[in-house]
């Protein structure tokens, strides 16, 4: 394999991982805020929490649509194998996101009726289930799926293993932490203080989860273990645990010294490290342990055409995404009602 047929899938794999990373971070704090409803029963605080994300959640979720579309257009073999294999958690996640998405509007518009509680619950459960499913989907990919003649040939519940449950819970914990640190940055007063407390607990949980997943993953397939112990690659891999710990201590300092943005940035760093660790682990597989990136790629004529569009559009998208975040920057208080 030479030239474009080799390089285009590599470039696309990098773009896809970047899109997933952006999605995880952006929608992660949205979903985390939904889960934090559990510990914040007061409607006025819940309104503030929702108001910090109301103007941007749709854009955040669009990264997920981009992920699906890129997989479909660029790696159709992976799209057509992974989605049937992960049918159950994907459908469950989509249904959860339906509740979550409409709850933004519905919980305010039903304010004076008994349905109000239902939509708050929908927001909370929708966020929690979606987060869990995303972890399980990730685990499903890492575990690998059985493939015959290029198509999925396993059973509907193959994905459900102790490892996928662990990953589901880890992602829930991680998103809740992202949400809490986002709120530290964007809110004031007792809500901010409560979030500082909660984020300590959640950070402890996430730290344990990262260690557990990191130790478990290499045991799943022999090539994974090799990836982490092979010589030149070791150079890139070795600093990862050190960085995780370093970010952890910066996080603690940020919380104690009442920094408002540092904790959020540290958690972003953790997520970045975890995702790059996973990407290194499964590289160059798209559907472990059988199909590589090149096995599932669409022809170069598709990948190239789409790359041209992406190269032009993605920077523009980033610019106006930043613009819309800037319009709604600053602390949100109970006096700011967006509705």
């Amino acid at each position, binding site marked *: 394999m030479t030239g474009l047929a080799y390089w285009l899938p590599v470039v696309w794999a990098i773009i896809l991982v970047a899109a997933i990373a952006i999605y995880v971070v952006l929608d992660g704090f949205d979903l985390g805020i939904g889960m934090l409803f559990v510990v914040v029963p007061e409607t006025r605080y819940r309104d503030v929490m929702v108001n910090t994300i109301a103007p941007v959640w749709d854009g955040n979720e669009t990264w997920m649509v981009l992920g*699906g579309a890129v*997989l479909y*257009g660029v790696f159709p073999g992976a799209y057509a194998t992974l989605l049937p294999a992960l049918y159950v958690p994907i459908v469950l996640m989509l249904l959860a996101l339906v509740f979550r*998405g*409409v709850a933004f509007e519905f919980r305010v518009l039903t304010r004076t009726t008994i349905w109000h509680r239902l939509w708050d619950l929908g927001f909370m459960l929708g966020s929690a289930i979606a987060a869990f499913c995303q972890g399980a989907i990730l685990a499903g990919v890492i575990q690998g799926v059985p493939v015959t003649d290029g198509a999925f040939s396993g059973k509907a519940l193959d994905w459900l293993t102790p490892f996928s449950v662990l990953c589901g819970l880890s992602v829930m914990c991680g998103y809740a932490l992202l949400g809490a640190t986002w709120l530290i940055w964007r809110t004031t007063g007792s809500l901010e203080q409560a979030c500082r407390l909660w984020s300590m607990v959640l950070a402890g949980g996430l730290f344990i989860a990262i260690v557990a997943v990191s130790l478990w993953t290499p045991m799943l397939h022999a090539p994974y273990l090799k990836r982490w112990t092979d010589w030149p690659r070791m150079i890139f891999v070795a600093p990862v645990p050190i960085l995780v710990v370093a970010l952890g201590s910066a996080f603690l300092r940020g919380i104690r010294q009442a920094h408002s943005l540092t904790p959020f940035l540290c958690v972003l760093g953790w997520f970045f490290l975890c995702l790059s660790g996973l990407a290194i682990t499964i590289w160059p597989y798209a559907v472990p342990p059988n199909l590589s990136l090149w096995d599932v790629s669409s022809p170069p004529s598709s990948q190239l055409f789409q790359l041209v569009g992406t190269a032009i559009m993605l920077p523009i*998208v980033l610019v106006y995404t930043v613009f819309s975040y800037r319009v709604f920057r600053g602390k949100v208080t109970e006096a700011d009602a967006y*509705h």
Partner: protein
Amino acid sequence: MQTPHDLAFLLARFQFAFTVGVHIVFPAFSIGLAAYLAVLEGLWLRTGRGVYLDLYRYWIKAFSIVFAMGVVSGLVMSYEFGTNWASFSRKAGPITGVLLSYEVMTAFFLEAGFLGVMLFGMNKVGRGLHFAATCLVSAGTLVSMTWILASNSWMQTPRGYRIDPVSGRFLPDDWLAIIFNPSFPFRLVHMGLAAFLSVAFVVGATGAWHLLAARRQGVAPSPPVRVMFSMALWMATLVAPLQILAGDAHGLNTLRYQPVKIAAMEGDWESETHAAEFLFGIPNMRTEHTDYGIRIPLLGSLILTHSVNGTVPGMKDFPRDQRPPSQIIFFTFRIMVALGLLMAATGLWSLYLRWRGRLYDSPLLHRLVFCMAPAGFVALLCGWITTEVGRQPWTVYGLLRTADSVSPIALSSVAVSLAAFVIVYTLVFGTGLIILVRTLAHPPVTGEYEANSAHPAEILAARSHPGAVPPVTDHPGGNA
């Protein structure tokens, strides 16, 4: 001889048809309403008349509800191609997936990026920037429609591809030919007009509702109510006839590229000249005959070929395993056309009343328009069913059968998820609809700006306070 696989296949089709049928209503609503909002805001900035701002404030609430429902139902669609139609995705993904990605990058991000500013930014950015945001959201909905219809049209009339002899995949050869395939321009125009018409009738019906309510209470209708009613009926008057022309052109084009679809829509079995047109009938696929037919002589040839001695196709010209189920599309097509004619008639009637100066005090017209609130959406759905069912038994016309497009998934997965979709959609979108109707049950708030020449942002800042959302239960007309 139903095997579990056949049943899973059937349920997968049901699930797709159900979810996409629910989805399409909301984007169509967003396309029309976003354009309407852009026009309202533009008029307000140009004329400075507060009535347009009143209407903008009024309809943007409906927009935020509808848009959210469009987003979540659309998210489902973008993954459902993979979950339900894996073989299709594997083979056609290099073409349809790329078009969908372009849609995400050029349209969805644009909509999502400026939606926040449009909904919540009135007192955060300047007038011009806010208007730009509204226009960009509206442009996003139109661009989105263009891409998805390019993709759908390519499935109807595929061009610009090669088939890989080994894998059976569609390889793109010529992207311009793929996008501008023969049915795309017709579908784009017809669908765009359908979205505008659908929203025109929702806006018109809301205006009619408040006109009737004002009449019942013996008060004069407020300016925003009159303006929205009048604007909506101008739209109906102008666009409904255009839609008939567009539909006619679309039909002629389909006759050229998918003659068996036309034969099935018409319930015709033999190809003939001087063909009659069925007003009613029940096509029977087994006996190859349309029962209980009521026909008008010569009209069939006239409509389809614009000449009484033109030849129209019959289903018997085509092998049985290539005929779409005529029993369905015969009716959906007639419902769409009947509603189209009714809309045009309504438009003409309102024009007459307008000329006589009685547009705002004809309860009969108001009642008719009120009842036609869902007419656009019903026609639109019937149109889609005609197009999509008429494409059967193919997903990519003439090349890839629907039966060969399905995923290798277990019957239990599809069955349970279908049930879950039906329950969740009914609950969520049912509630959405109720909330929407209750929001529209309040007449627009009026008059606060007419005398006030302050900067709009200040006015809005002064008006918005916590819990500014009207309570949805305590209005007299609010229980509809």
